[in-house]
């Protein structure tokens, strides 16, 4: 198989590397993530089916502008993540590091927006068992519960992705990731793109119900 290579190093030891196997392992992990979020999406769909009017009222209180900005941020970070892989394959190490750095900064900006968005909501009393919640209908309470759990779990994934990418940045710097040995970077990218895809669905389902 062309994917399995054996590198002979100075000490004539054989280092075995299986890039396709590594990528497949990453995809298997991504499937578990898909089912984790998938379960929550099913919960969301069921409650939206039961309380569609309440969901509409509750969603009106979310800030569409912040949601849109965060969507663009994540899409852009996905672009720079895949470009950093392309750059290392073209032996442009420094450019690849800049792109990875930019990706991590975009993730940080996403989290800062999320922080301000959440603190505004909490300040106004919209949080589980918050002062405003007693005046809301059942469906609205469920909506905010799902909103905090789903965007919260997603934000957690953004943090993990940022750590993952930072480690890759160090690996590129130390040349543990090179033009012909970059499966680790691709795997980190796969994770980052999955987090992006999850947000692609969260965004219209929470911010764009009218």
């Amino acid at each position, binding site marked *: 198989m*062309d*994917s399995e*290579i054996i590198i002979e190093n100075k000490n004539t030891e054989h280092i075995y590397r299986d*890039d*396709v196997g590594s*990528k*497949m392992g990453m*995809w298997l992990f991504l*499937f578990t993530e*898909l*089912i984790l979020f*998938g*379960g929550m999406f*099913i919960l969301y*769909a*069921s409650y*939206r*089916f*039961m309380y569609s009017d309440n969901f509409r009222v509750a969603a009106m209180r979310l800030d*569409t502008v912040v949601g*849109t900005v965060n*969507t*663009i941020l994540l*899409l*852009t970070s*996905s*672009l720079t*993540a*895949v*470009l950093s*892989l*392309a750059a290392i*394959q*073209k032996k442009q190490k420094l450019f690849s590091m800049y792109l990875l750095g930019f990706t991590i900064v975009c993730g940080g900006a996403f989290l800062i927006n999320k922080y301000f968005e959440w603190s505004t909501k909490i300040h106004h009393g919209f949080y589980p068992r918050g002062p405003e919640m007693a005046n809301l209908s059942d469906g609205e309470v469920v909506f905010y519960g799902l909103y905090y759990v789903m965007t919260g779990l997603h934000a957690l994934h953004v943090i993990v992705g940022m750590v993952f990418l930072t480690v890759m940045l160090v690996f590129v710097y130390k040349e543990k990731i090179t033009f*012909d040995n970059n499966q680790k970077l*691709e795997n980190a*990218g*796969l994770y980052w*793109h*999955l987090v*992006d*895809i999850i947000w*692609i*669905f969260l*965004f*219209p*389902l929470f911010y*764009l*119900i*009218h």
Partner: protein
Amino acid sequence: MENTHSINYGTYVLVWLGLVVLTTLTVAIAGLNLASLTVVVALAIATTKSLLVANYFMHVKSDSRVFKVFILVCIVIFLTMIILTFVDLIFRVP
């Protein structure tokens, strides 16, 4: 090892541009009053965006068939879960 990905910056930037356009479109359409169609249109656009990300950024398009089958099986399992849940919800006797 031969890396079969197209390592062309231009293609990626074009895909990103498409994603941004689709985002603008989905925000604009949400402003219109399409009643029950809103969620259908929103999900259709989100699915299109995900396909772009998966095919180009995640390189599924140029991956070998085993990955495509893998992903398809996972999505079919997920859709089955959704359908079974909704069969329960819709036909539930109060």
